[in-house]
């Protein structure tokens, strides 16, 4: 039977060279944004789902700010609640996305980042929403509050068959052409298609490394945690796509992780369970949440949230606009639940996972509506042990550590027992 879990917290995460590189890159990016704010340089608000458009914007000399990343940073640094409350005082319901509320609250508190740096006021609000209807509203509000023009790139949802209809791609390409025209007027710079192609070559190179890195989690032990560590890797992916710095970062990361595979090193001393995770983490309790799994020796080997790159997708420099259009259409948030089930099942099977962990977040209906059905499907149809937890990605008021811990512990105790009965080797806990 399972031994009692040690009370001593095992705090582990990957801390290699790239950890520092990532910090430096993101600090540089924030400094550039602060500079842009001071100089009133053209800046566009973007979303992570459509963050590949940064490649295009960079060619046009336009900076990018990501309100989502700002909300994320506010939560992880435990600064989100006062901003959420400011938004609620302005009429935002307790039941709407708290990412939106934290961002709105921060805007009305001086438009500061979590690091205390000034964020530039956007000169264009560009919503490429990829399946999240709240993103449409959020950017509409930003435009209303800042007075900046709004352009919503309508991204048709993948709704018939496995991929987009050709008409969907044409539609997004037409809209991209309109965006280019707006940006050219804004920055006074004509788009150089050769420069765009070169940037796409760099983006493709970076994406190749990213996809290779993701495949490394098939190894036992996995060289890094595909949920908690991979979230950190997503920063440079979003901010430096299509740049030599981005390529260098992911080349370095790939080499480091391959070396760890060769040496058989994982992010926790002993990988005892391999899990696939669905949905966003509770950022205000990110460390606490991670520790709930670390103490059981559980490592994430796959996650939907850390699949911002459409699986098997690479930008094609020979089809620049089509390729830029296909990315936000093909991303998993723009696909139905059934396709998300297929992605999760693929991760469980290919990466030899023991369980699926669903973290259902109140803020995000895109992720969470249907999670009960997902649990039913994975546990009763596919016989994959599944745990569903509920809290929020931004609002600390919805996180109950004791309750969450009880559920995680109970789940892994049963899982351990099942493994034991299945004749698998059970190793003792380090006490």
């Amino acid at each position, binding site marked *: 039977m399972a031994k009692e879990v040690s009370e001593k917290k095992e705090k582990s995460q990957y801390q290699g060279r790239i950890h520092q590189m990532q910090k430096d890159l993101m600090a540089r990016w924030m400094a550039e944004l602060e500079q842009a704010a001071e100089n009133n340089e053209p800046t566009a608000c973007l979303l992570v789902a459509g963050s590949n458009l940064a490649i295009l914007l960079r060619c046009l000399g336009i900076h990018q700010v990501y309100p989502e990343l700002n909300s994320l940073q506010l939560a992880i640094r435990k600064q989100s609640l006062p901003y959420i409350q400011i938004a609620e005082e302005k009429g935002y319901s307790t039941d709407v996305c708290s990412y939106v509320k934290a961002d709105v609250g921060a805007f009305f508190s001086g438009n500061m980042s979590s690091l205390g740096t000034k964020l530039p006021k956007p000169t264009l609000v560009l919503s490429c929403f990829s399946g999240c209807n709240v993103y449409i509203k959020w950017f*509409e509000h930003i435009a209303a509050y800042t007075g900046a023009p709004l352009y919503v790139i309508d991204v048709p949802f993948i*709704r018939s068959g496995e991929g987009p209809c050709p008409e969907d791609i*044409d*539609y997004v390409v037409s*809209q991209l052409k309109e965006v280019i025209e707006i940006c050219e007027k804004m920055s006074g710079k004509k788009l150089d298609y050769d420069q765009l192609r070169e940037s796409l070559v760099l983006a493709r190179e970076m994406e190749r490394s990213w996809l290779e890195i993701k495949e490394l989690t098939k190894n036992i032990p996995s060289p890094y945690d595909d949920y908690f560590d991979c979230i950190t890797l997503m920063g440079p992916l979003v901010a430096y796509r299509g740049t030599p710095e981005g390529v260098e970062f992911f080349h370095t990361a790939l080499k480091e992780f391959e070396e760890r595979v060769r040496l058989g090193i994982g992010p926790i001393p002993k990988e005892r369970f391999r899990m696939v995770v669905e949905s966003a983490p509770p950022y205000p309790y990110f460390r606490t949440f991670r520790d709930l799994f670390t103490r059981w020796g559980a490592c994430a080997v796959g996650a939907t949230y850390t699949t911002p790159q459409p699986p098997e997708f690479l930008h094609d420099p020979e089809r620049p606009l089509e390729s830029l259009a296909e990315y936000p259409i093909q991303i998993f948030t723009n696909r139905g639940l059934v396709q998300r089930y297929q992605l999760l099942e693929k991760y469980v099977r290919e990466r030899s996972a023991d369980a699926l962990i669903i973290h259902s977040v109140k803020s995000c209906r*895109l992720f969470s509506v249907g999670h009960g*059905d997902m649990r039913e499907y994975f546990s009763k149809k596919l016989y994959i042990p599944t745990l569903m937890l509920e809290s929020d990605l931004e609002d600390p008021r919805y996180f109950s550590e004791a309750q969450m811990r009880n559920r995680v512990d109970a789940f892994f105790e049963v899982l351990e027992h099942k493994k034991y009965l299945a004749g698998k080797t059970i190793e003792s806990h380090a006490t």
Partner: protein
Amino acid sequence: MDFESLIAQCREMIDNPLHPEVLSWKEKTGGKAVGYFPVYSPLEIVYANGMLPVGIMGGGNKLDVERADSYFGSFVCSIVKSTTELALRGDLKYLDGIFFHSICDAARNLSFVFKRNFSPQLFVEYIHFPQNPSSPSAVKYLVSELERVRKKLEEVNGRPMTEENLKQSIHAYNENRRLMQNLYRIKAEAPHLLSTPEAYLLTSVGNWLPPEDHSMILRAALEEVPKRKIRPRDKIRVVLEGSFCEQPPLELLEVVDEAGCYIVDDDLLLGRRWYEEEIPLDGNPVHSLAESYINRARYSSVSHDWRRPRSQRLVERVKQSGATAVVFCIAKFCEPALLDYPLFKDVLEREGIPHVSLEFEEKMWTFETLKTSVETFVESILFD
């Protein structure tokens, strides 16, 4: 038939969850019945294919949600759960298919829960409506989407739809919408003659009837309403906003009325009244439908038209209907309505238009607290 008997007939139809009128239509015509979730659905194309479009507007407050809760989180609106419960109970067996639309994340995910659990017995289609009508390419895109829907229906039916079929169907719905508009005109001009609960009953029976049959009921009502002998009362005129998807219980509408409000305009069952102008019948009818969606649709929290912001259109609607205030009546957990509220609130405050916000769930059955809120609001305006 006098007005009261007409209303009684509508109430009876709404109260019967088995909707025998759909079954009898299917028996009579041999056609299929296709459900549609709120808000707008291209009913014209469904009907032109010889199928009966059936509005699935949730389970009301008499349905016990027993099993559907486990399919969704605790923070999901009632209509998503009650619609699933209806399907799990077998209460949607009279449907051959169902359409969902790009109105919100919850409804979109619901369509895939339906697909996994109830197809292939029920064909499930998801329609993506354009969210960027200011793009010149939006009409072309929507034509392709409507053509996809058309092909799907033809495939299910095993026979093609002709252009003439579609024109006839558009004509029937144009007429149906015109009659509903007339009903709403009375509500605005002489609200004492037609209460919102009554107008709601008359409109909602159209969810289970072919447009021509519904239009007959509307014509009868339009003839009878002016004959009613009801004296106007000292009430404030309000616009009701926020109930475009999940529908508030009829009792809630009665409570707002009793608390001293004439609801002179609302967005209840908005999809049935999506166009205030007729869809043109000249030219390619699929193109006409698409072009009307882009250029002639009502504003709503689930469709976005950057050329004319919704907050501006709400103010216009308040002014046009001669209302003095807005009552927000928003379903719990409805993100499109809840997220529109702060911008609506800002503009109403700038314009000096008083407003009150009510939150409801379709399964609610006590209304005293809401009544007190509305009464206090009304008094604050009447005795200001």
